[in-house]
């Protein structure tokens, strides 16, 4: 039985008013603008885009501002917004080999063609607080690099820039390409192939996820999954719960063009560019009845610059593949598809978790009645209990 309870309206209005005030904080401090958040809190913006599953830096920045920096709340806002958008099309699969790379490293090959490019990384920083950033006026920070960094002579003036050492020209005058490390191993047959197919992938935003899920559906769920949850799961595989002996074959961050088939034109055009982080792990594999001993692969692809998430995703992807590869199920959480896929979405999780704080007066009243009755029964039958 539900009993309608009214009377909270005024309290709710006042709570929302106060929330807006608290969001703004001390009015003596200048208000944050959306461009400031987008440009200076980029990695938070990236996380909101990835887990909100909508690439739009301005909207992600707005969501962060509105959510007072609570990233899961911001992701919630983005997820709610994206349901209002008509789906215009699906893109052609992005070509990550044609990525304009900011960063590209391999933990397996020191001298990979194109080299190890560190990019704007926190690696090798000392993790000491930089009090200079606290000063009101930011000091100029020239790049220390004697070559390449900072201003490019000639580039701004429209002259030809020096050729980048990272790329080789594509065949047929296509975009410059940065070959994948796994491609080198693939040439020798030392690693499993990843053959392409023309199949339209399943979409969990269109049809409820059904288990068992194929790898494409799992990757979609992981790509929008919670970074912290995937990090914990991936770490658990490293500590022995479904160990897969992963090496980071390659990690790359950069921009790729998004191409869409336009029905009114009858051909595909590039409609924009997005930043992605891609991780490919190379994993030990002893072979099975059908497969020779070779390396196997885990894959992570995440919107924006988010290498922790991309690495975690590729470890969890690999752990979930135990069945395809004929490995043993050891009972590890990271191998359990149902456990991983049904719990990695932070909006589903927080929705169910937080709903228990909302009124459950009637439910609880029933529990209360039950406990009272059981206690009364126990008290009236003291002898029987002995």
């Amino acid at each position, binding site marked *: 039985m539900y009993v309608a309870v009214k009377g909270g309206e005024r309290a709710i209005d006042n709570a929302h008013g106060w929330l807006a005030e608290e969001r703004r904080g001390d009015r003596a401090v200048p208000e944050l603008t959306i461009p400031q958040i987008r440009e200076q809190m980029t990695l938070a913006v990236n996380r909101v885009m990835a887990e909100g599953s909508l690439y739009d830096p301005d909207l992600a920045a707005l969501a962060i501002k509105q959510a007072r920096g609570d990233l899961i709340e911001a992701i919630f806002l983005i997820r709610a917004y994206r349901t209002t958008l008509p789906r215009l099309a699906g*893109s052609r699969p992005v070509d990550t080999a044609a990525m304009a790379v900011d960063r590209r490293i391999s933990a397996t090959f020191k001298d990979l063609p194109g080299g190890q490019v*560190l990019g704007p990384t926190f690696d090798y920083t000392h993790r000491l607080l930089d009090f200079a950033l606290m000063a009101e006026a930011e000091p100029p920070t020239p790049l220390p690099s004697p070559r390449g960094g900072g201003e490019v002579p000639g580039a701004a003036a429209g002259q030809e820039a020096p050729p980048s050492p990272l790329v080789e020209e594509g065949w047929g005058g296509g975009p410059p390409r940065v070959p994948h490390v796994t491609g080198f191993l693939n040439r020798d047959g030392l690693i499993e192939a990843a053959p392409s197919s023309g199949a339209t992938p399943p979409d969990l935003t269109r049809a409820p996820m059904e288990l068992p899920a194929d790898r494409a559906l799992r*990757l979609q769920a992981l790509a929008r999954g919670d970074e912290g949850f995937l990090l914990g799961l991936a770490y658990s595989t490293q500590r022995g719960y479904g160990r897969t002996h992963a090496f980071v074959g390659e990690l790359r961050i950069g921009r790729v063009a998004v191409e869409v088939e336009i029905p009114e034109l009858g051909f595909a055009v590039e409609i924009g560019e997005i930043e992605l982080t891609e991780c490919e792990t190379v994993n030990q594999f002893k072979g099975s009845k059908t497969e020779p001993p070779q390396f196997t692969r885990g894959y992570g692809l995440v919107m924006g610059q988010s290498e922790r998430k991309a690495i975690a995703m590729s470890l969890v992807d690999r752990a979930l593949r135990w069945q395809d590869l004929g490995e043993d199920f050891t009972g590890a959480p990271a191998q359990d598809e149902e456990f991983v896929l049904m719990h990695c979405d932070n909006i589903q999780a927080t929705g169910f978790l937080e709903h228990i704080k909302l009124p459950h007066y009637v439910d609880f009243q029933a529990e209360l009645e039950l406990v009272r009755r059981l206690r009364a029964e126990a008290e009236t039958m003291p002898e029987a209990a002995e």
Partner: protein
Amino acid sequence: MTSPAPEARKAWIATLAKAPPGRLAELMPELPPHDLLRAPEVGAVMVRGRIGGTGAAFNLGEMTVTRCSVRLPSGPVGHAWVQGRDRAHARRAAVIDALMQTEAAPDLAARILAPLRAEAEARRAARAAKAAGTKVEFFTMVRGEDQ
């Protein structure tokens, strides 16, 4: 009205889509008269990746996109699909796509597309050069047994 080669049209549509909206508006502040066949519409495109970079496709997540179609009084129809939610950007790109099918094409190519391409290339080159500046140059230390 000339019928453009698909490759050329593909290239200018991409240039217009990827142009910073503010810069495009600066280069083409006034739009000639045109009819809206499809008013600018904001929606989403599902971006796909490939498993392992080369394998079967999977859905990575969506991006915001705005599309628009226009017709010039003289007949040519222009289309635009641009990243983001900027309706003016989509409309401007669609009008230029239509104009590029008229005798105004050479002038627009020189006045609008060429600078946009040069600026995009300069941005790309500047970033590539910064990346190149962070390339590791390994060198081998003298090892004990060599001495």
